[in-house]
């Protein structure tokens, strides 16, 4: 494996990790506030569909972006309504949203475009263009650093850079602002937050809005950056892998980047080398694809440190009994 191949695989890994990273951060905000969010998958799917459908109809990816985020936030609000206001079971509400998304996208897509649930192929203004970073072509010939800059870092859509930027932003918001402190507290001990005179309900809804926006971005990237149209079930389990990455990262933003990049890398290697020849044994493609889940199981079994979820996660907050 030469250097250029490594750069190309990393390039592919970065692309594949981006939707995972965005979804993982969405889960991070929601679970840190004490709301389990199984519905990441469904939110990615509806956002992918509506952004692609609206971008295809209007010809502008930015209007598509707004539509995708709006629908994803709306889904988030349904989840919030069920699990915060009505104090329902958060897992059931999330699973219901996943089913709803899977059926709704195909149904609306068929009625809208009559393409069997697919949206028309997006072209030109209806897709996010690949951005060339400054001097990318000028430095391409510099050994080692040139390819890293011009192939690996440059030439992605704007959402990839937004996702990467959101990692330090999330860290700052969670650990260096008053809002972040309260958000974390509400996931650990909502009664204490309430005693201090801060609204638990409002904080949790705010976290759901943030999760909705981030999931929306993940779906939009999937449909208009990574792909060029919506296809039936195109999220393909990414919401669940993001949840696995969240556990892997122990609900922290910077490890979340590492975990999603690792999972992206595994996918990229599986694509480049369907059968991985390690000399002694050849790993089949199925093994490579199952690896993120296997890794998560190993971590959950406690081999690599202990992953402790936010204490109040999954518990609806009841003020008085």
């Amino acid at each position: 494996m030469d250097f250029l191949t490594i750069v190309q695989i990393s390039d592919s890994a970065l692309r594949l990790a981006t939707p995972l990273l965005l979804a993982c951060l969405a889960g991070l905000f929601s679970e840190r506030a004490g709301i389990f969010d199984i519905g990441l998958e469904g939110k990615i799917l509806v956002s992918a569909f509506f952004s692609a459908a609206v971008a295809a109809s209007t010809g502008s990816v930015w209007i598509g972006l707004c539509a995708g985020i709006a629908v994803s936030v709306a889904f988030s609000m349904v989840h919030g309504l069920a699990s915060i206001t009505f104090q329902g079971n958060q897992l059931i509400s999330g699973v219901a949203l996943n089913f709803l998304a899977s059926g709704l996208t195909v149904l609306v897509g068929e009625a809208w475009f009559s393409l069997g649930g697919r949206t028309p192929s997006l072209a030109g203004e209806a897709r996010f263009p690949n951005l060339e970073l400054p001097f990318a072509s000028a430095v391409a010939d510099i050994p080692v650093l040139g390819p890293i800059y011009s192939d690996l870092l440059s030439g992605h859509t704007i959402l990839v850079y937004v996702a990467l930027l959101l990692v330090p932003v999330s860290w700052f918001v969670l650990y260096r602002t008053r809002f972040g402190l309260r958000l974390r507290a509400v996931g650990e001990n909502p009664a204490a937050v309430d005693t201090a005179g801060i609204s638990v309900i409002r904080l949790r809804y705010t976290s759901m809005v943030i999760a909705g926006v981030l999931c929306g971005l993940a779906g939009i990237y999937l449909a208009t950056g990574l792909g060029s149209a919506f296809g039936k079930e195109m999220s393909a389990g990414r919401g669940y892998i993001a949840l696995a990455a969240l556990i892997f990262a122990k609900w922290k933003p910077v490890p979340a980047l590492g975990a999603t990049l690792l999972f992206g890398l595994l996918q990229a290697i599986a694509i480049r080398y369907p059968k991985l020849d390690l000399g002694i044994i050849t790993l089949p493609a199925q093994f490579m694809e199952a690896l993120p889940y296997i890794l998560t199981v190993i971590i959950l079994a406690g081999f690599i440190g202990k992953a402790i979820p936010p204490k109040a996660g999954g518990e609806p907050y009841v003020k008085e009994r």
Partner: protein
Amino acid sequence: MTLMKKFLGAAAAVAVTAGAALADPAIIFDLGGKFDKSFNEAAFRGAQRWADETGGKFLEIELQSEAQREQALRRFAEAGANPIVTTGFAMSTPLSEVAPDYPDTKFVTIDGWVEAPNVHVVGFAEHEGSYLVGLLAAKASKTGTVGFIGGMDVPLIRKFACGYAQGVKAGNPDATIIANMTGTTPAAWNDPVRGGELTKAQIAQGADVVYAAAGGTGIGVLQAAADAEGVLSIGVDSNQNHLFPGKVLTSMLKRVDVAVYNIMTAGENLEVGFEALDLSQDGVGYALDENNASLISEDMKTSVEDAKAKIIAGDIKVHDYSSDDSCPVLDF
């Protein structure tokens, strides 16, 4: 009592005529979806053409999951549909279960293999068509490296890949062929994102012509090739040249539409047997239209037509992967 008998008799008569009138043909689309721009869509076009020309109606269903296969067959058979056309090799097993239960209904499998007195089998010589597009790919490639992206890893798709590889080697004996399969489950027919990533990986390895035999996944392949500079793609089953004009070198045509049209035209009088559609009957071929006219030079056209004539005459033998589950020029 007599009145009652009359009523019953009338009701029975109505039921009989209704039964006769109900003998519409039915078609079951496989998991890639009716509008996959490829295999299933070709079948749909054939059925639609029959409906437009004769004013007839046909029943249809798009399968959503594996579990629906047998259910859909039984529903159509019990509704009196005849013949029932199924697309895709994956219908073979459910069809061999269901067909004996409805001996008066004629079933058709396109791409599958079922031995039953009431099942009509339609097969295509995909290896011959793939050979021709492989030859074109070798002539069009500047890097000497070409790619192949299959859908689900099954013998049928390896048959495409093997024919293609033989064509490439015929056009350029030193050419490198990179072959990837999208997956090992039926979901591999409908994963354009993965198809696109596979294409980017092949382009990174030097491929400048990529042949997609992957149903709905192929759209992602064609898109990724169209996005890249100087890379051409080859479509499959339907003519996909128009999807990205000037970026699709050609399409390997599999005239599923003609097969479906002929079957529906024959209707209940369909003669059950095995039908193999190859180059000599134009059952397979390569697409040439205004969208790719500038990509196919006179020289390429001459050599591909020459190869076609030789295959029909039997001077060139294209190895069929499914005959012995091996390919002389390509390792999987």
